[in-house]
């Protein structure tokens, strides 16, 4: 199976394609039909020429074949996890200097506060590993593997609220409607395993907080077979995948074959490429009837693997169990595996809540990286851990010696990466001593996305899709590859 061959067949046109690509529109069409009725549609040479400039992917030899993105929804506090700022503890309770905030925009949730007292983290920071990375006591397991990690402490975004910020980091635009990163990769690189989708989403069950929408893993304007497929925990990983009672696999196959015939007739008649997408979706679903239960089955994992990921990993739907599943999906060559873990949006009671969040994610995140390493999979898998923005250095609401909250802060946050294509044991960028503004090597969301694509062998400026009259790409008209993190 040649998996680079994922673009539409040259002869298939949507209504828009049809109207725009018949060169002179309907006038040329009627003229053409006078000359040769056969050539007006489908076989015409000049129609094919317009599509002949196909892109060759990958654009260069990739470093990674797949990505596991451990998305921490709600925005974890970088000041309590990674970005050590002793100055905030020294000046605990004092006002943030005017020169630091300046005239910058704050959210409506804290802009009305009379006072902006600085809240130093209540958690201990220590340096770890040979790289000497500062880590808070909240992440004891991740602290042990810092020499595998590549921190970017100078990430920033423009969005100040969750939905636009998440939409931005997932799709490159704050406005909904663009394809998600995983969809772009699926569209650009095709599949490595035709029995599973290229883009799988796993959401931690039972978490509350900022809502997640399926459009975050949506295909936008790309053909719909590139959308992310959510695997649920429990009995039916993918809803409505199982045959209804009384329908055997043979009957289902026969039914799908007949359906395909009908759809092909329709396609020959109308020529809409979405019909082909529909056929491929049915076929994928049929193959997934066996492949999905197979990959979701963790019963043959040995005890020491469960011990590595933590007790939670035996409980389907937890972050730890999803990390374990992510590894299994990666082993099956799923291209983009996205985990979502909600509940990091700690406007109040941060010390209490972040402890719980860290406990749920720390061990499994570290375990996943270690597990991939021992299997040699860190050589072609990129792991990313991070949220949609950062949190403020001042307390939202009343600052107490043992309690504070933090508001949204898009001006700096920390993410870390590990695995194929990135340097180990480094930390890029820095924030000022108050942890408010970036002082060194700012990395925008688009730069991060450009870098991610670069590691997968894609020039982010070349992977485009023409829609509504112009070519779109993940990074729109922005983004520069962050060379400093590339191995």
């Amino acid at each position, binding site marked *: 199976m040649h998996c*680079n061959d994922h673009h539409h067949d040259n002869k298939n046109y949507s209504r828009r394609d049809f109207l725009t690509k018949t060169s002179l529109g309907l006038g040329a069409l009627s003229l053409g039909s006078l000359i040769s009725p056969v050539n007006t549609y489908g076989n015409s040479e000049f129609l094919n020429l317009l599509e002949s400039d196909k892109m060759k992917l990958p654009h260069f030899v*990739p470093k990674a*074949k797949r990505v596991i993105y451990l998305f921490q929804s709600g925005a974890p506090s970088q000041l309590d996890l990674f970005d050590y700022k002793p100055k905030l503890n020294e000046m605990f309770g004092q006002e943030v200097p005017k020169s630091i905030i300046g005239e910058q925009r704050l959210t409506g949730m804290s802009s009305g506060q009379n006072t902006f007292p600085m809240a130093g983290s209540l958690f201990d920071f220590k340096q770890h590993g040979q790289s000497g990375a500062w880590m808070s006591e909240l992440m004891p397991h991740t602290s042990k593997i810092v020499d595998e990690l590549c921190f970017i402490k100078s990430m920033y975004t423009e969005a100040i609220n969750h939905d636009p910020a998440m939409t931005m980091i997932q799709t490159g635009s704050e406005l909904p409607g663009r394809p998600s990163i995983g969809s772009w990769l699926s569209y650009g*690189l095709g599949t*490595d395993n035709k029995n599973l989708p290229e883009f799988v989403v796993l959401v931690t069950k039972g978490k509350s907080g900022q809502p997640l929408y399926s459009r975050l893993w949506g295909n936008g304007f790309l053909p719909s077979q590139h959308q992310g497929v959510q695997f649920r925990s429990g009995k039916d990983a993918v809803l409505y995948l199982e045959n209804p009672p009384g329908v055997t696999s043979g009957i289902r196959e026969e039914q799908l074959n007949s359906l395909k015939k009908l759809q092909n007739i329709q396609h020959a008649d109308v020529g809409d490429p979405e019909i082909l997408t529909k056929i491929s979706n049915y076929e994928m679903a049929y193959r997934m009837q066996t492949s999905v239960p197979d990959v979701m089955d963790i019963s043959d994992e040995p005890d020491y693997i469960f011990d590595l990921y933590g007790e939670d990993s035996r409980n389907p739907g937890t972050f730890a169990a999803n990390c374990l599943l992510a590894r299994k999906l990666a082993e099956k*060559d799923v291209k983009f595996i996205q985990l979502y873990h909600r509940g990091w949006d700690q406007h109040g009671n941060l010390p209490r809540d972040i402890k719980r969040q860290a406990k749920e994610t720390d061990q499994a995140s570290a375990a996943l990286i270690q597990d991939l390493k021992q299997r*040699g999979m860190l050589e072609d898998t990129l792991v990313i851990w991070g949220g949609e923005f950062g949190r403020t250095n001042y307390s939202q609401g009343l600052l107490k010696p043992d309690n504070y909250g933090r508001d949204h802060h898009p001006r700096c946050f920390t993410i870390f990466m590990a695995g194929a294509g990135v340097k180990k044991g480094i930390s890029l960028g820095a924030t000022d001593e108050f942890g408010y503004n970036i002082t060194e090597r700012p990395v925008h969301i688009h730069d991060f996305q450009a870098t991610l694509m670069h590691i997968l062998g894609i020039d982010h400026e070349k992977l485009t899709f023409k829609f509504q009259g112009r070519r779109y790409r993940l990074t729109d008209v922005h983004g520069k590859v962050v060379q400093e993190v590339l191995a």
Partner: protein
Amino acid sequence: MLSELIDFLGSLHPLIVHLPIGIVLLTIAIDVFMRNKNNSVHRIITLGWFFSFFSGLLAALFGWFLGDNGYYFESQLGVHRWSGIAFVSLCFLIWLLKFLNFRFSKSSTRFVNLTAIVLLTITGHFGGEMTHGQNYLVENLPFAKKKISTTSIEKDRRSEVDSLFVYEDLLQPVFEQKCMACHNSKNTYGGLNMSDFKSLVKGGNSGAGIQKGNPYESLIYKRVSFPHDHPKFMPPAGVPLSYDQIATLEWWIDNGAKKQLPVSLARKDPKIQRLMEVQYGLDLREKSFLETLKLDPPSKTSLKALEEDKFMWRFLNPEESFLDITYTRNTIEKNDLISLQQVKNNITWLNLSNTNLKDDDLGYLVELPHLTRLKIQKNSRITDNGIKAIKGLENLSQLNLYGTGVTDAAFESFSMMKGLKKLFLWNTRVTPTGIEKFKALHPKVEVVAGLR
């Protein structure tokens, strides 16, 4: 005393030259624009030609002194000198005739005025070239293409760092631009000819040009790195060599000053490497095996040998010559291994993990010359004997063997794999002591054998 005075007067030349320029232009302007000339106008014009001649004579005299101190090169100086003298003589002649009340016809007035301006322009231009350097005029033309890089390495050659030489590609163009006006095969000032490598090394009357390995004893390096006001500083006129050009010269002599010293040697010296990258736009980063490899794409028919339901394959590069192949079924058969041979030149990554692969099967992989990543983990029937069969894979950089039956005996085979960088041995029968021993011998190979 006298020579000092002469030197001083010589240095006044650039000042004095502007007097005749102004005066003669004003005189001609009066001649041209004042149509109805009475006697006093004629006398002013006559006086103008006299002062043109007189100030021109001073300028020429001082210029002669300046040109005599040896800083200027005859071929440049010649035209300037003689056209200057011709100009002064012309001024003298015109003044004399006017003084003797010779009546110039209209056309002859036009002719002498024009000749004076032409001579003035020629003199001025060549004088300017001497002080500002050749091409100073063209360089600053508003629409002329400006050279940003000090040396002219064409853009498409920059990526071929390995085929560039320090002398030919970086230094010789500099010599050509800065030194060879005076030090060439025809004009060998100071006995030095820099137009070819041999005579450059040989040097001139003062001694050897290059002392291989010793820049500070090499006259060429010494002269260009003197303080600018040093009497022996080179080049005496024009723009001196830039810092990076001098540093490149120094580094080249230091490293033996060979004619064929490759530019890629700069990788050993971070300072020079950075300089080459910034100044010449060269990419000197070490290239991996794949980055230097050029292969022909596999033929369509050979790709057909990879059956769709058994193999998953894709190209790793836009040239479609590197193949990444995964076997998707649980048990690989001999026939499958034989079909792989159809594209053996193009296989760069190969994944046969968990395919029930046996020792005998590994023999089929010996003939994959460009294989860099091999994944044969989770095949419990693979033992040390199988590894022995593939020890000749010299471009293999990653080998994944976790969950196989290899033991410490396999380290001997690993030692033979010259390109090996990473080795995965988790869940095998390899012992920690075996790994330690191997690591001591091959510190550059990373061995991952489970969690520490």
